[in-house]
C-alpha cells in the first residue's frame, strides 16, 4: 500500500514538473497579457465589459497574425472589486502565468493596490477607468514607474472645463457652487478655480452647500449679486436639478458648467429647461460617431451594448491599442522594454482619439465637450488640455 502511494506521489510530481516545463515552453511563441477586474458581484458589469472587449481584440489581433509574429494569450482573474483579491491575482498573473503586462483594474482602490504589486514585480499596468490621482503617483508625489492610466482624471476634467469656458465660450467671470464633504466636488472646485484664474478668468464667488441640502437659494442669491457669466457646478444629478431650478426661479440667467457627473441621463430628465445651454466635459461622448464601428463589433459578438455601463469598454480598447503599440516599439515581449515604450507613447491612435502619456503617466487625450440644447445633449467638439 505504502509503495503504491509513494509511486503515485512521485508520478504526480513528475507530471507536475513536466506540465510546468510544457507551459514555459509555450510561452516562447505567445505574448501573455493579463487582465484583472471585477467579474462577479455588484461591479461585475464593468469588469465583464472590459474583459469581453479585450477578448474580442485579442481574437482579432491573433486572426491577423498577432504581434511581433506571436499570438497573444489573455489571462484574466476576478478581483471582486477587492484590494487583497487584486494583489493575489496580480501575483498569480506575474509569477505563475508569466504575463508581461496587466490591463485593469477599473476602480481606484483596487488599482492602487494593483500598482503596489506591479511596482514590486516590475510589470507594467494600464488602469482603465480609475480616476484617483494616487493610482499613478505615490503619496510623496513621485510617479509610479510601472503604472499608467487611460481615462481622464477628475482634476483634468475640471481644468479642461475652465480652459474651454474661457477660450471657446468667452466666459470671463464664473461663480462656483460646490458640495462640502464630497471629495470629488471639493477637488474639482479647486482645480477649476486655479485653472480659470491662471488663464485670466475671474471667480466672482465660491459658495458651498452641505451633503443632503435641498435649498440652495441663500447661496444662489449671493451668487446672483456678483453677476457671473457662468456658474460651475461639480455636483451629482439631484443637486444639479435642484440648483438649476432654484437659480432660474431667482431670475439667474448665467449658463451652468459641469464635468462628467452631468453625463448621467437623469440630469436631462430632471433638470428640464433649467439646464438649457449648459456645458460639460467628459472623457467619452457616447454619441460620438467614431465609436460606431467599435459598438457594432461588440454588439455583433456579444449581443450587448458596450456603452451601457459607461466608458469601460472604450478605455479597455484604448489600453489594448496603446499596449500593442508599445510592444511593437519595444520589439520584444519583455516587461521592462514594454514599460519603457509605454512611457514614450506619443499620439497613438486609441479608440476615438490620439493618446499620449504625461509625466505622471496620465493619458493626454481629447475630452468631449457637450452642451444641452433644446432638451438634448449635443456634442460641442473636443478639447485637449493645454498646460
Amino acid at each position, binding site marked *: 500500500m505504502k509503495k503504491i502511494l509513494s509511486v503515485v506521489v512521485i508520478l504526480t510530481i513528475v507530471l507536475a514538473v513536466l506540465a510546468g516545463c510544457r507551459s514555459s515552453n509555450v510561452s516562447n511563441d505567445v505574448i501573455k497579457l493579463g487582465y484583472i477586474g471585477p467579474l462577479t458581484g455588484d461591479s461585475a458589469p464593468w469588469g465583464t465589459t472590459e474583459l469581453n472587449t479585450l477578448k474580442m481584440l485579442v481574437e482579432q489581433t491573433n486572426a491577423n497574425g498577432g504581434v511581433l509574429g506571436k499570438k497573444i494569450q489573455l489571462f484574466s482573474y476576478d478581483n471582486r472589486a477587492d484590494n487583497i483579491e487584486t494583489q493575489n491575482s496580480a501575483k498569480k498573473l506575474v509569477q505563475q502565468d508569466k504575463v508581461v503586462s496587466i490591463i485593469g483594474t477599473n476602480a481606484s482602490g483596487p488599482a492602487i493596490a494593483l500598482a503596489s504589486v506591479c511596482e514590486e514585480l516590475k510589470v507594467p499596468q494600464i488602469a482603465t477607468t480609475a480616476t484617483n490621482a494616487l493610482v499613478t503617483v505615490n503619496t510623496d508625489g513621485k510617479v509610479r514607474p510601472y503604472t499608467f492610466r487611460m481615462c481622464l482624471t477628475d482634476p483634468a476634467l475640471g481644468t479642461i472645463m475652465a480652459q474651454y469656458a474661457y477660450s471657446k465660450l468667452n466666459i470671463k467671470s464664473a461663480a462656483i457652487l460646490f458640495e462640502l464633504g464630497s471629495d470629488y466636488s471639493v477637488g474639482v472646485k479647486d482645480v477649476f478655480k486655479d485653472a480659470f484664474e491662471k488663464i485670466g478668468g475671474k471667480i466672482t464667488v465660491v459658495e458651498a452647500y*452641505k451633503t443632503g441640502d435641498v435649498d440652495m437659494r441663500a447661496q444662489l442669491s449671493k451668487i446672483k449679486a456678483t453677476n457671473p457669466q457662468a456658474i460651475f457646478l461639480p455636483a451629482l444629478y*439631484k443637486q444639479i*436639478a435642484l440648483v438649476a431650478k432654484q437659480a432660474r*426661479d431667482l431670475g439667474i440667467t448665467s449658463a451652468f458648467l459641469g464635468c462628467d457627473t452631468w453625463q448621467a441621463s437623469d440630469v436631462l430628465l430632471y433638470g428640464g429647461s433649467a439646464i438649457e445651454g449648459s456645458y460639460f466635459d467628459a472623457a467619452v461622448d457616447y454619441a460620438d460617431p467614431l465609436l460606431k464601428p467599435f459598438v457594432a463589433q461588440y454588439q455583433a459578438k456579444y449581443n450587448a451594448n458596450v456603452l451601457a455601463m459607461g466608458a469601460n469598454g472604450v478605455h479597455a480598447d484604448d489600453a489594448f491599442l496603446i499596449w500593442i503599440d508599445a510592444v511593437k516599439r519595444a520589439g520584444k515581449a519583455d516587461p521592462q522594454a514594454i514599460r519603457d515604450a509605454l512611457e514614450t507613447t506619443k499620439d497613438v491612435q486609441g479608440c476615438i482619439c490620439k493618446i499620449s502619456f504625461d509625466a505622471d503617466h496620465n493619458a493626454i487625450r481629447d475630452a468631449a465637450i457637450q452642451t444641452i440644447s433644446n432638451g438634448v445633449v449635443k456634442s460641442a467638439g473636443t478639447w485637449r488640455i493645454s498646460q
Partner: protein
Amino acid sequence: MFLQQIINGLSIGSIYALMAVGYSLIYSLMNFTNFAHGVAVMMAAYVGFYALTLIFPNAVFGFLIAVVSGAFFSFLIEFTTYRPLLLKNVKRVYLIIAGLGVTIVAENLIIVAIGGRFKPYPSTLFSAKPIKMFGVVIGIVDLEIVIISVITLIAVELYIKYSRDGLAIRSASFSLDITSLMGVNVDKLIMTVFIIAGLLAGVAGYFMGIKYTAYPTLDQLSIKAFISAVLGGMGSLTGSVVGAFILGVSEVMVTGYISSSLRDVFTFSLLVIILLVRPTGIMGKSSEDKV
C-alpha cells in the same frame, strides 16, 4: 439681496413651521418627542408624487391625497408602534427610541421598495412664473406654502381653542391622568392628536415634494423642525411657528452673509444659547405647569 434673503428664509421657515407644530402638538399632550414625525412627511411626499403621476395630474387632487395619507401614516405609526408601548406603560425614553427605529425602518423600506433615486413632481403642474417686485423674486409655490401654512395653522389653533376635542387636548396637556379620570377617552384623544399632526405632516410633505422632490431621507429635514419647536418652546404652537421662522431666516442670513459651512454651527449655537437663557424656549410654558 437682503430682502431676497428674507423671502428665502421665510419660505424655508414656513416648511419648518408646518412640521414643528406636529412635534409641538404631540409633545404638549404626551410629553415626549415623536421622532417618527418625519416619516409621515416623507411618506406623504411619495404618495403625492404617485397620486400626480399615476392617478390624476391635478395639483389640488395631489394635495388632498397627500394630506390624507400624512394623517393615515401618522395614525399608523401611533397605532402600531406607540400604542402597544403605551399599554405596557413604558418609560417615555422607549417611545423616543421606538420613533427613531420607525424612521430607520421606513427610510430603508422605501429604498428597498421604490429605490434611492429622487422622484421629482411633474414640473408642468408647478411651472408658474415667479412674481417679481421691488427687485425681489417670489416663487408661486413659496407663496402658496406661506398662505396654506398660515390657514392650516390658524385652523388647528381654532380647533384646539374652541372645539370639544380641543378642550380635551388642552386639559390633557396639563395632565393626561386627570383628564382620563374626568371621563375623556384618552386613547381616542391621542389618536386625534396624531391625526392632526399627520394632516400637517401631509401638507408639509406635499410642498416639500414639489420643492425638493420625494426621496427616502426627506424626513431628515424634520430635525430642523424639531429644533424650531425647541427654540420656540416645546408645547406652544405659536412658539414653534415663531421658532421655525427665526430658524429659517437666520439659516439663510448666516449662509448669505457669513458662510454656508458655518450655517449649522451657527443655528445649533443659537439653540444652545436660547436654551441656556430660557430653557423653555422663546414662548414655552414652564414644564412645572404640567405637573
